[in-house]
C-alpha cells in the first residue's frame, strides 16, 4: 500500500513539473532530445534519492536545480554549444515583433546562462531570489545579468 502511494506521488510530481523541467532544460541545451533525456534523468534521480530534498526550498526549485546541474554537466561533457542544430530550435511560434531576425535565431546567439535566466524569469515567473537559489548567482548578479540579457535580446530583435 505504501509503495502504491509513493508511486502515485511520483506520478503527481511528474505531471506537475515535467513541462517546466523540460523547457528549462531546453532553454539551456537547445536540443529537444537532450532536454528530454535530462528531464527523465532528473525524475529518476528524484525517485532514487528524494531524501536529499531538505525542504529548504520548494520542490519545483529543487527539481530545477537538479535540472540545471544535469544540463551544465551535459554541456561540459558534450560541448553541446558547438553542435547546436538550428532545426532543434524550431518551435511552432510566430512572433508579434517585426523582427530583424527570428526569436529562435536570437536565442541561439545567447549563452546557456542567458537563456536560462530568460526562461526562469519570463516563462517560469520566478523571483530574483528563487533564480539565485536555482542558479547559484547572487541577487545583484541575477538583476544585472537579466538586465543585460534583455538589453541584448532587444537589440538583436529590434535594433539590428
Amino acid at each position: 500500500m505504501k509503495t502504491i502511494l509513493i508511486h502515485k506521488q511520483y506520478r503527481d510530481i511528474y505531471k506537475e513539473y515535467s513541462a517546466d523541467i523540460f523547457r528549462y532544460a531546453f532553454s539551456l541545451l537547445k536540443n529537444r532530445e537532450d532536454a528530454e533525456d535530462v528531464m527523465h534523468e532528473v525524475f529518476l534521480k528524484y525517485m532514487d534519492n528524494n531524501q536529499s530534498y531538505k525542504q529548504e526550498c520548494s520542490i519545483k526549485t529543487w527539481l530545477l536545480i537538479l535540472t540545471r546541474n544535469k544540463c551544465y554537466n551535459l554541456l561540459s561533457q558534450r560541448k553541446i554549444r558547438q553542435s547546436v542544430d538550428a532545426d532543434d530550435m524550431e518551435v511552432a511560434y510566430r512572433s508579434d515583433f517585426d523582427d530583424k531576425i527570428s526569436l529562435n535565431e536570437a536565442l541561439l546567439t545567447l549563452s546557456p546562462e542567458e537563456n536560462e535566466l530568460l526562461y526562469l524569469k519570463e516563462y517560469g515567473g520566478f523571483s530574483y531570489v528563487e533564480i539565485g537559489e536555482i542558479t547559484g548567482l547572487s541577487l545583484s548578479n541575477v538583476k544585472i545579468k537579466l538586465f543585460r540579457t534583455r538589453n541584448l535580446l532587444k537589440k538583436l530583435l529590434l535594433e539590428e
Partner: protein
Amino acid sequence: MKHYDFEISLFVDNELDEEMQREMFEHLAKCGECRKTVQGFLGIKKEVNNYYGSMPAAPVPVLSGGAAHNNSRSTIYAFSAAASLIIVSVLFLAYYISSKASYENYENKIVALASTNAVLNSKLKSTNVQELPRQVAEPVKEVKSAGHSRRVNKKAIKKNEDIRNNNIERKFTGSQNTNMAVREQVTDADYFTIKLTGN
C-alpha cells in the same frame, strides 16, 4: 533628463521597492524614451513566454530501471504475496468448514448409535432369554477297552458340540440379532467341559 534602463528591468519584474516604484511611475509619465524601453522589455517578456509556452510538452516517459522499476516490481511482489495469502486463507477456511461438517456428522452418528444401543438394551432387557428352549448336553460316558487306558466316546462329543452350537444359534436369533445379544451369547455360552475320567 536622466533615463532609466536597469531600473526599468526591475520595474517590469515588479522587483522595485515602493518608493522607487512611485518615482518610476512619475518619470514614465514624463519620459517617452523610458516608456519605449518599458514596452521593449515587456515585449521580450511576452515573446519569450509565448515561445516556451508554445513548446509541446515532453512525452510521457516509459519509466524503466531505477527506483521506478524497483517500485513497480515491489508492487507486483506485494500483490503476489497478498494473492497467495488470500488463496491460502480460502483453502484453510474450506478445509476447516469441511472438517467441522464431517466432525458434526460423526458426532451425529455417535449419538444415533448410542440411542440405538439404548433402544436395543431396553429391548434386550425385556427379552427373556430363558424362555427359549434349550437342550441339555449329555454327559460323556467313559469307554474302556483292553488296549487303551482311556477312551472318549467320539459320537457323544460330536452330539454335544451340535447341541451347543444349536443353543448358541437359537440364543442368537432369540436375542434380536444384535451385538449386545452376541456379546451376551459369548459370555453366557455354555461351553461344555468334557470331563475325562481316567486314572
